[in-house]
């Protein structure tokens, strides 16, 4: 199926009423939680996972993806108006976006971020469409050693790109993988660490762990810290950027899009690092760097484009390799698996309706988001005025309902609450929960690939070094590990990036 034919087919799938509704609900909810500080796309996607049980796999994935890229739009609204990032990837938007709002230019700031998001989002969809099929045909030739090499590279990047202590990130990844071994052994099906419990035989659930680490812990932290929103009181007028704004922001927008997309494909990047890199790049290229931090529209356009393009880019490893490059994609992977669909190289052939349907839905979703975020901006400003004292009980309640309804079992609530408390402590002690969750999801794949590799080679680890693709991955992993030592600027840049709690 060639690309245009595939896209046409995908549009047909997306325009079916149920899928169109799923897309709308996804981007709407995504914008909503993007606007609300303290709830992010990852927690929301896992929260809504149980609701998708009754939907078709295609509609579920369309909705989940919509939440993810929708949140990237909504997050910037809060950054501009409240100077709090609505979700973590909008941190940079606060710098110049909020300054613009203080100067009475909230309208153009919101306008350019929605338009930049739209352009970048659409660009990344086109790239996914063009890149995914050829990548898929390469990935089809991967055996267990190649998969193991890829996972090793992915984990190396995830831990090396974490802000703060790399050792802590490695510890969290190992802990996550260890927690993932609870339950039945994937190859021999013998129980591990279950202590005779039937519930533990199924292992710990992904949903309760994510909701605990990203949802509950965040709410607890906010309760303890006493969050106060301070919505910047201004009349938002003139959403459309002026000709001068356009002149200033078009090049940053284009650079942010390409940069974000390329970085987004890489494991561990998430959507935050590209925004910081885009901001740093624009500041360096600017003729008047002094304007940055004082309401420069370039400082909004570049990073906003970067985070949306990165969001699209991160779909590529998932759709073509079945590898989740960040936590949000790990939840999306979970959504695939719950519906009995394995994303990866076979997806395009076995489930073309999902593959092309999701891609086409992202075009449609981006158009919906533009409408939701520009003319309806007033609605989201009202949402921002809801006090946290009313908001947090509702967030907790939705977490409780979501996690209980997955299996109708109180045990899942207990697991979620335990991980909520653990997540709070982790944040206080400077441990990033993202490597833990990623390793938890990918642990099974890692274990299977290494055990099968060893079975193939009769116990020799040399199999990882004698096959060219596997060797290339392992060499790349080593390079990534050594990169910060070789290039001090890379290290310095990474140090400025805050932890990626894309909650």
């Amino acid at each position, binding site marked *: 199926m060639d690309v245009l034919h595939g896209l046409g087919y995908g549009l047909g799938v997306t325009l079916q009423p149920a899928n169109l509704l799923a897309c709308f609900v996804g981007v709407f909810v995504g914008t909503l939680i993007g606007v609300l500080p303290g709830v992010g796309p990852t927690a929301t996607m896992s929260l809504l996972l149980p609701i998708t049980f009754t939907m078709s796999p295609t509609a579920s994935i369309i909705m989940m993806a919509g939440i993810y890229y929708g949140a990237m739009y909504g997050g910037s609204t809060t950054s501009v108006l409240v100077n709090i990032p609505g979700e973590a990837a909008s941190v940079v938007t606060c710098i110049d976006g909020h300054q613009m709002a203080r100067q009475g230019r909230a309208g153009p700031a919101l306008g350019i971020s929605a338009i930049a998001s739209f352009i970048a989002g659409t660009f990344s969809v086109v790239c996914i469409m063009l890149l995914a099929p050829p990548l898929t045909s390469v990935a089809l030739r991967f055996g267990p050693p190649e998969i193991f090499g890829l996972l090793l590279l992915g984990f190396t990047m995830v831990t090396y790109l974490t802000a703060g202590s790399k*050792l802590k990130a*490695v*510890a969290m990844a190992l802990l996550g993988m260890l927690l993932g071994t609870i339950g039945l052994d994937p190859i021999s099906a013998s129980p591990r660490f279950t202590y005779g419990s039937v519930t533990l035989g199924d292992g710990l659930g992904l949903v309760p762990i994510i909701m605990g680490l990203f949802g509950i812990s965040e709410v607890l932290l906010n*309760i*303890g810290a006493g969050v106060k929103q301070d919505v910047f009181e201004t009349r938002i007028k003139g959403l459309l950027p002026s000709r001068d704004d356009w002149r200033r922001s078009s090049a940053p927008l284009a650079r942010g899009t390409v940069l974000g997309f390329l970085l987004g494909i890489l494991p561990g990047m998430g959507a935050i690092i590209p925004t910081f890199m885009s901001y740093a790049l624009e500041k360096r290229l600017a003729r008047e760097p002094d304007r940055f931090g004082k309401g420069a529209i370039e400082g909004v356009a570049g990073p906003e484009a970067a985070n949306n393009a990165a969001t699209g880019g991160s779909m590529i490893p998932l759709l073509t390799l079945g590898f989740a490059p960040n936590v949000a994609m790990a939840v999306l992977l979970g959504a695939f698996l719950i519906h009995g669909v394995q994303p990866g190289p076979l997806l395009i052939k076995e489930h073309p309706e999902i593959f092309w349907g999701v891609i086409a839905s992202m075009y449609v979703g981006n158009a919906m988001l533009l409408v939701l975020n520009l003319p309806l901006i007033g609605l989201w400003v009202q949402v921002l005025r809801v006090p946290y004292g009313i908001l947090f009980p509702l967030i*907790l309640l939705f977490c*409780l309902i979501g996690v209980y309804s997955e299996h109708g079992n*109180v045990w899942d*609530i207990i697991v979620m609450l335990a991980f909520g408390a653990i997540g709070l402590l982790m944040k206080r*002690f400077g441990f990033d929960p993202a490597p833990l969750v990623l390793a938890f999801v990918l642990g099974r794949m890692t274990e299977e690939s290494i055990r099968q590799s060893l079975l193939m080679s009769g116990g020799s680890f040399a199999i990882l070094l004698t096959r060219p693709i596997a060797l290339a991955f392992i060499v790349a992993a080593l390079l990534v590990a050594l990169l910060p030592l070789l290039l001090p600027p890379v290290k310095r840049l990474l140090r400025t990036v805050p932890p990626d709690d894309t909650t």
Partner: protein
Amino acid sequence: MRGRDRAAAAVLLVFGLLALEEARKLRFGAVAKPGPGFFPVVLAAALTVVCAALLIVAWRARDGGGDVAGLAWWKIAATIVALFAYASVLERAGFVIATFGLLLFFFKVLEGQRWLPALAGSLATAFVTYVVFKVWLNVQLPAGPWSG
């Protein structure tokens, strides 16, 4: 920060050792034919080594000061206790009653709202969420004593 880092590393180290001890009870198999215990043992051993390294780093680090802002721990603890209590009564009391109690606790005790709005808000939210999730979205929730 130094004291915190040491404590965290120590706790993780103990966990790593415990996991290693437990993982060793599983069948390891051979490298040519790895059994169920192979992967957990490798992971637990690696975790132990990494945590030992963390502990050494934390021990040698100079105290950088710069403590993070304090939190209202009583509020956090009260919230956690309330949520565990909710989990323990949910199936016996049913969704509406348990949720009403939980929300009332949040609105009245934690947020200090007045009785009337707190009561009305809790009751309305409990009912509306029940109708939306159970009736519209067909999500499973315990009905409690009223279920026929």
